[in-house]
């Protein structure tokens, strides 16, 4: 299903749809890593982006739908020059994470929650995060730019 339109180093695009089931998350990760390899992105940047993508799709799986039916989540990967972009599109309830207040970082274990870490992780690790609601669908896009290599040190 994945389609790579041009040879490596040129703008590349791949698109796949996945069911809104958590067991698909590892498939998405594997697919993304293969894409990253094709476009020559590696190291910590791949891990950061994979985690962000994982968090976005997890969020859709867990919170976007009010029913238990199967839905399709479309994921679009794009690489252009040094930029890596992923768009996650779903037909769930409108949800703009950018409008969600960033929870304060807990200053004690007692005050810490055990959920709600996903979007803060994405906001911290992605270079850009944008949202639009179009044709009844949520579209969340994350961007990683190559100029700022993060190595976690």
């Amino acid at each position: 299903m994945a389609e790579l339109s041009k040879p490596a180093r040129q703008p590349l695009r791949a698109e796949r749809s996945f069911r809104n089931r958590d067991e698909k998350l590892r498939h998405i990760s594997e697919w993304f890593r293969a894409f990253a390899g094709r476009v020559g992105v590696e190291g910590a940047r791949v891990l950061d982006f994979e985690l962000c993508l994982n968090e976005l799709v997890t969020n859709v799986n867990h919170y976007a739908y009010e029913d238990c039916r199967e839905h399709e989540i479309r994921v679009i990967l794009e690489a252009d020059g040094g930029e890596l972009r992923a768009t996650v599109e779903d037909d769930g309830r409108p949800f703009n994470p950018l409008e969600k207040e960033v929870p304060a970082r807990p200053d004690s274990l007692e005050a810490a929650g055990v959920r709600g870490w996903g979007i803060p992780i994405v906001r911290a690790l992605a270079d850009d995060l944008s949202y639009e609601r179009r044709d009844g669908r949520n579209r969340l896009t994350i961007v990683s730019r190559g100029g700022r290599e993060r190595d976690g040190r």
Partner: protein
Amino acid sequence: MELTYEDLEDGVRRVQLAGRMDVEGAREIDLKFTSLTASHQAFVIVDLSRVEFLSSLGLGTLVRSAKAQMSRQGKFVLLSPQLHVAKVLETTQVDRILPVLYDFEEAFLAVRPAGTSSG
């Protein structure tokens, strides 16, 4: 995801996790991990050296057990996370509320219950 554990002297328990601690991985170990680290007072070292990937749900699993130990007057530290896992702990600032150590002896001394003196 794999979970193994050993009970050491002075009541210290070392739990070693291995694999991807994503939604699927966290669910695989959740019941056993909670039973070993949260259901009663314990002095726990969670060895993360073989965890390759930590997502928010995996992080929640760790924090939940740590909170349980705090309320039970137990102890809970994280040992030797890989670079990317350490980065998640740092990004979320969980490393400020939960000890993250890189030396086993140091971790042992940190969790060993008061009043014990071996080592």
